[in-house]
């Protein structure tokens, strides 16, 4: 069908062993780049001194020590808790609201410019306000994360409710489904992929929001650890905290991925991943 498409052509020589070699070569290229990155890191550390750039080995040993004595875990626990609690508090109303408003188009239209404004507003800039209101503890971070997550997920869920296939609804009504059946069996499953797109996008923001608030003002958490180490000119400590934060991001992304795969087994492989990583 695709007439001008480059066909998956292979010159006569190409065979299966050739393809295997290709894959092997690309893997080894990737390993070489990884080694190169560590070499550059090590070289920078030697050249500029451990004071400016902690060496990879030092960072690894410090990270390990932090895990063993629990200091890294202590801070990671707070950041993780802030992100997850805020995420849940923001996401739940954001998912429910579009469903509640489905039968009220006028209310949705009234809310629209306010929601667009809320979505576009720089929520992280609100961090000082939340610190003013809720203090430097965990509450201000949770509030910041929740409000950030809310607007992202709201629009994804709204898109899901709107993208609903009216033919499916009619089909269900013809088949004798009532309003509640339609909501439960057609609208909700149809919107789930959209909700997950929103959750995927929101997840890194929730951790980022918690960390920003911690850097600005806190007495614990990984953001605080980054800031504290930087104040003490301890770059190794900064690196350790950064690695811990990044690990949390990966774990949370993995959790969302896992939940999505479990809930959406009926769907073909998702291509939403790339968008979500923006």
């Amino acid at each position: 069908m695709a007439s001008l498409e480059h066909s998956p052509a292979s010159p006569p020589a190409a065979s299966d062993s050739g393809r295997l070699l290709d894959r092997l070569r690309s893997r080894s290229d990737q390993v070489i780049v990884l080694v190169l990155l560590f070499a550059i890191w090590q070289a920078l550390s030697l050249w500029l001194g451990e004071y400016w750039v902690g060496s990879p080995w030092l960072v690894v040993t410090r990270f390990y020590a932090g895990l063993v004595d629990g200091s890294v875990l202590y801070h990671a626990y707070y950041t993780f808790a802030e992100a997850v609690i805020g995420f849940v508090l923001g996401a739940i109303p954001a998912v429910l609201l579009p469903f509640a408003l489905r039968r009220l188009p006028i209310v949705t239209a009234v809310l629209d410019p306010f929601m667009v404004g809320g979505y576009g507003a720089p929520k992280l800039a609100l961090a000082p306000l939340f610190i003013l209101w809720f203090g430097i503890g965990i509450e201000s971070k949770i509030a910041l994360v929740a409000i950030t997550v809310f607007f992202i997920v709201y629009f994804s869920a709204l898109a899901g409710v709107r993208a609903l296939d009216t033919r499916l609804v009619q089909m269900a009504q013809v088949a004798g489904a009532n309003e509640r059946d339609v909501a439960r069996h057609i609208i909700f499953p149809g919107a789930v992929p959209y909700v997950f797109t929103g959750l995927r996008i929101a997840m890194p923001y929730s951790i980022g929001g918690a960390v920003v608030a911690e850097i600005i003002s806190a007495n614990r958490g990984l953001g605080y650890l980054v800031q504290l180490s930087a104040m003490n000119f301890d770059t190794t400590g900064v690196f350790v905290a950064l690695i811990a934060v990044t690990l949390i991001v990966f774990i949370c992304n993995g959790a969302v991925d896992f939940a999505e795969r479990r809930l959406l087994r009926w769907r073909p492989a998702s291509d939403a991943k790339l968008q979500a990583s923006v």
Partner: protein
Amino acid sequence: MTTQDGALDLAESTKVKWRQYAVTAGRIGLAVLLLLAWKIGAERAGPLYVADPVLVAQRIVTGISSGELLYHIYVTLRLSVIGFAIGCFFGVALPFVLRRMPRVTNAVEPYIMASVGVPKYALVPLFILWFGIDDAPKLWLIGFLVFYPVFIAVFAGIRNVDRRLVNMARVAGASEAMISREVIWNSLLSFFMASLKIALPRAVSAAIIGEFLVGDAGLGYLIEYSRQNFDTVGVFVGIVVATALVLIINAALVWLDRRVNAWRPTERDMQI
């Protein structure tokens, strides 16, 4: 028959009209309600927690007329624009360079994609340590925050270019450079615009966050300095102005996108 249809149409259109009035009235009502809630909230919670909207408005007016507020806006915008330009340049140039080097692309891609996961704001203390307390750390932050969405969009855009259009252009005698400019660039323009909608407001927000942490001017500095001095009105002024600034930029980008992508079939996106 026709008269009946006409009557129906009329009824339908008046219904639509009424609906529009209701929506407009509702929006105005809600805006008033929110302002009222702010006002009442200020009285209930006390001036330390919520600044009185009237005082905020007054402060904005005096700030603008004295030029002080304008100066803060200028500082923030200048920083955002420079950082944005840096991030955007690398975000666009790198995919075009990588396009010609499939082997290198394949080798570095997993690491670039993994680095997306690093929370960039957490790097600020490190940047301050390395690059001092002038504009440099903030520019690194803004540059990184802008680079990623632009790079990912342009990279994906180049991958998704319709091979058939490229082949058509080749058959018609176009050189590689012409294909880059004509087919590839135009194909990814909508991806690029979508990434700008994310990146430009983000650049402003990043400048503000950067100013929270380091610097002696700009909207972020204004907000954080006011907070530390328990000047709640100042905090609110900064936040109101920053929000307005970002929303104006958003609106301008939506408008620009419509102009640039006029050739696209009418879009149904929700402008979020």
